[in-house]
């Protein structure tokens, strides 16, 4: 079980770190990352019947981020890593996509931000709804709303 867990962390460490960066202040990211790892290890048994590791990681990651570290959550500061990593990427109106992604996510409430993360990661509506505990229709409506919000905000003519 330990080897299986280590492999999972090796494969999905970036995803866990991305969740921690989204939900903790810059100086608390390490603590949240560690806390999510601890919770993942504790709930490794619940993963065995789960279909995809991504689903399990988002499930435990969001649960931990939103219910366990209430004192440190939010005030999302600039996501320096994300912004710095792709300065050379294709730009849109002078800004790179990573900056736009970071800015848009920061403007969202926690739940919308979590839905967006999972959507961008390719999770299906059914999987997102099973993680959050809401109806699939609710998830679809919110994804459509996010798409519209994004289009309205970043509509640009090249």
């Amino acid at each position, binding site marked *: 079980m*330990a080897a299986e*867990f*280590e492999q999972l*962390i*090796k494969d*999905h*460490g*970036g*995803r866990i*770190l*991305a969740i921690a960066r989204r939900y903790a202040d810059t100086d608390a990211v390490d603590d949240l*990352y*560690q806390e999510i*790892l*601890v919770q993942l*290890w*504790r*709930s490794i048994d*619940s993963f065995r019947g789960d279909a995809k590791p991504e689903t399990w990681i988002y*499930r435990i990651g*969001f*649960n931990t981020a*939103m*219910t366990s570290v*209430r*004192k440190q*959550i939010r005030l999302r500061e600039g996501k320096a*890593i*994300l912004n710095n*990593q*792709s300065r050379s990427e294709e730009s*849109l109106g002078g800004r790179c*996509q*990573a900056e*736009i*992604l970071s800015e*848009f996510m920061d403007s969202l*409430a*926690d*739940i*919308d931000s*979590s839905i*967006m*993360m999972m959507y*961008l*990661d*390719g999770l299906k509506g059914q999987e997102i709804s*099973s*993680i*959050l*505990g*809401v109806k699939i229709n609710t998830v679809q409506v919110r994804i459509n709303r*996010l*798409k519209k919000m*994004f*289009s309205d905000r*970043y*509509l*640009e*003519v090249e």
Partner: protein
Amino acid sequence: MMELDDLKTTWKKEVKMTTKIADFNSIKCEVRKLDKQAKVSWSIEAIGALFGIFSTAIFTWIWIDEPAIFTQVIAVILIASLIYSARLFFGIQQTETRDDLTLLAKLNIQIEKREKEVKMLRNFAVVQLIPMFSIMTLASYAVYIELTGRVMPSIAFMIGWGVCLAYFIFLHFYNRNHLNNKFLPALEQLYELKKQLDG
């Protein structure tokens, strides 16, 4: 025109980035430490309650040869209040919401626990501090009578009561402070998240 789906590649890049190496041993150590802390915390509370109950019973019905009715009544009240307090503290950890591992269930569980804590802290003075202070004052007075045979408490004994009263007043304001600065903001955040989830 740029669309949300255009950011999928960017997000995938972020989730693939990992600069951290997870130390598996430290995770296991952390889990062991947390489990140990939880066990120690529960044990201290349980041992404290049991110690209070047993020491009261032993003192009243074994150590004292012929305890006065007053002493016995106070001992019974003290034991009953200790059992009540223990049940209250243990009850806070119990929730009716079933944990199905979804975020909604986790939020509901946290809200249920925090609501119980807030309710308890709001009524702490009336439900816990005042009765406990009264019972302890009476219990110590009963012990005083049993040991000295005197009805009128000495100055030193009354100073002891005064110190005890000051301690209970401190506890009251400490709890109020905790309630306003920790529990209520946490509960507000949880309500806000639930509202977002429902909305």
